[in-house]
């Protein structure tokens, strides 16, 4: 098991190295940063001096190494557009995205697993079938459309909820939170639903399929034949087995919530890192883009790693070290 963990961590690092490389290459693909930094009246001496200062005269590998070294410390240089450290800008924007992702992720997980179980257990019920039909819409509608429809219904027509922004936020140390004010919470509702709906329907359909599969297994039949009550059959015997395969996909889904946040943040003008990224693209603000890319990949890789380790917690068959006790 330890060997497995070490291998997974090594793989994760490799993935990060590769994305780091992509992020780093963006700098040179999109033109010489020196052009941007020095004005029209520049001498060759100025250029050479700045090159030396920035380390751009070093060999490629050395530059890449420097970039990684800085990136690990969270240093991505100055934003071309705002002239401030990228890490400061990201840190300002991150709470908005994380709070949104957290609420949508929670909605998606709780709603998805709950409804998945419900529709599997009541597979012939009217309400279960209704939920399945509605969920088809959730899967097939694009996120921005859901957002726009929600805005139209709840903001424009009914005037209940704000259509953009984060509402009032409270500053706690370096973190800004919308959880503590009424307008902050209200502002969260529509974007969170928009962002979480797709994931929720996906998780729900997955849990339902898996659960139906598991409910056909011999050990479920045997549990019933032993007179185990239905609640225990469903939630103790079946659910645990259902969750094993569901975990991976679900983990990936949660990771993609942060990535998908770009669209939702744009629709709702949500002041998070996604919106920051979209704006950065418009202004070819490479350091911000590179930093965003790195941050997203760290999150993805981290979530993946956690998911893999969760497997061990849930499925005893993977805990290889115990099989030594096996008897014949």
């Amino acid at each position, binding site marked *: 098991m330890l060997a497995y963990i070490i291998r997974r961590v090594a793989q994760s690092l490799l993935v990060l190295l590769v994305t780091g490389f992509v992020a780093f290459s963006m700098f040179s693909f999109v033109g010489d940063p020196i052009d941007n930094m020095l004005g029209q009246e520049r001498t060759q001496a100025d250029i050479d001096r700045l090159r030396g200062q920035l380390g751009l005269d070093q060999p490629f590998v050395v530059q890449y190494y420097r970039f990684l070294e800085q990136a690990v410390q969270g240093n991505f240089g100055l934003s071309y557009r705002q002239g401030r450290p990228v890490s400061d800008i990201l840190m300002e924007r991150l709470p908005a995205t994380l709070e949104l992702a957290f609420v949508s992720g929670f909605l998606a997980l709780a709603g998805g697993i709950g409804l998945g179980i419900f529709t599997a257990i009541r597979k012939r019920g009217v309400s279960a079938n209704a939920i399945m039909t509605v969920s088809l819409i959730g899967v097939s509608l694009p996120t921005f459309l859901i957002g726009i429809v929600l805005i139209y219904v709840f903001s424009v027509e009914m005037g209940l909820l704000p259509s953009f922004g984060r509402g009032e936020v409270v500053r706690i140390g370096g973190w800004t939170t919308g959880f503590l004010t009424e307008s902050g919470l209200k502002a969260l509702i529509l974007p969170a639903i928009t962002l979480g709906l797709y994931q929720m329907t996906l998780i729900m359909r997955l849990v339902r399929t898996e659960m139906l599969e598991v409910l056909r297994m011999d050990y479920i039949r045997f549990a019933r034949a032993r*007179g185990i009550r239905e609640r225990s059959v469903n939630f103790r015997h079946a659910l645990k087995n259902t969750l094993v395969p569901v975990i991976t996909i679900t983990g990936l889904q949660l990771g993609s919530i942060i990535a998908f946040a770009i669209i939702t943040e744009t629709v709702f003008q949500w002041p998070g890192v996604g919106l920051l990224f979209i704006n950065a693209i418009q202004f070819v603000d490479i350091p911000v883009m590179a930093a965003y890319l790195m941050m997203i990949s760290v999150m993805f890789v981290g979530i993946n790693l956690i998911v893999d380790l969760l497997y061990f917690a849930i499925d005893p068959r993977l805990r290889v070290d115990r099989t030594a006790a096996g*008897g014949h």
Partner: protein
Amino acid sequence: MSTPVLSLRDLVVEIPTRTGVLRPVNGVSFDIAAGEILGVVGESGAGKSMTGNAVIGLLDRPARIVSGEVRLLDQPIQSLRGEALRRLRGKRMGMIFQDPLTSLNPLLTIGDQLTETIREHLDVGQSEARERAIAALDEVGIPAARQRIGSYPHEFSGGMRQRVVIALALCAEPELVIADEPTTALDVSVQAQIIALLKRLCRDRGVAVMLVTHDMGVIAEAADRIAVMYAGGVVELGPVREVITRPFHPYTGGLMASTPGASKGMRRLRQIPGSMPRLDALPDGCPFHPRCERAEAACRENPGPSLAACDGRAACWFPLTEPKEAVS
């Protein structure tokens, strides 16, 4: 004679399909007394598993009991549903399935599965249930039961797992056990051990056992009486020795002739010509007549007679052995 533990009378199970109603179990009657093993044999599709499932109330939709009686001691149970039926399962009738690899929940320890079953049916605390679980494992011959109780199913070999399955089926001390091909999935060397175990438990505890199997050797070794099923009906019923050495029904005769070593001094192995008719294409008259060497006009025109017509032993117009005039 005391009341039989299980008593079936004209049990009929139907499956409505788009093309018509199928009857996988068509008027089955037999009794099993306490401490008795009834072997049930017959070709694949004869309705053996359906009969067992009907008794324990685990018919898969859309199959259902439409008429006849299932009696557990003095209680008719064929129309019990839901909670009332669940209370009987495990407590008064247990079931053992074919494949021990899939009968146990892979994510729960065998101790969890045992104590859960025990506590479902007996009013005992956790530690008392644990002691009983250990005793149950001991009884089925799991070595070092106290140490193994926290093990997961995958840590046991196939034979050991089937012992665990038997312990699970018997841990709440049911009066009736239905064993549906309990040895089919096991190594030949292990089969004999499992059969010996079933036999011992049956004798020690006075459990009535319905033992479904394809293996005539197993029947000859373990069963007291034998019921031969064909196309949903019992075609021959009697003490094992007599049926094996002197079958009445031509189908039983054919079955013995096609089983190596079932009867001593066998000429040579013969196959019964043809195959069992599909349920949606049953012939008129006796369902066996198209394959029967002895069939005459009467067999094509009349359905097979009741067992009573032939000493209560075989459902045949022209049995291989003439029934004795006087019943001993």
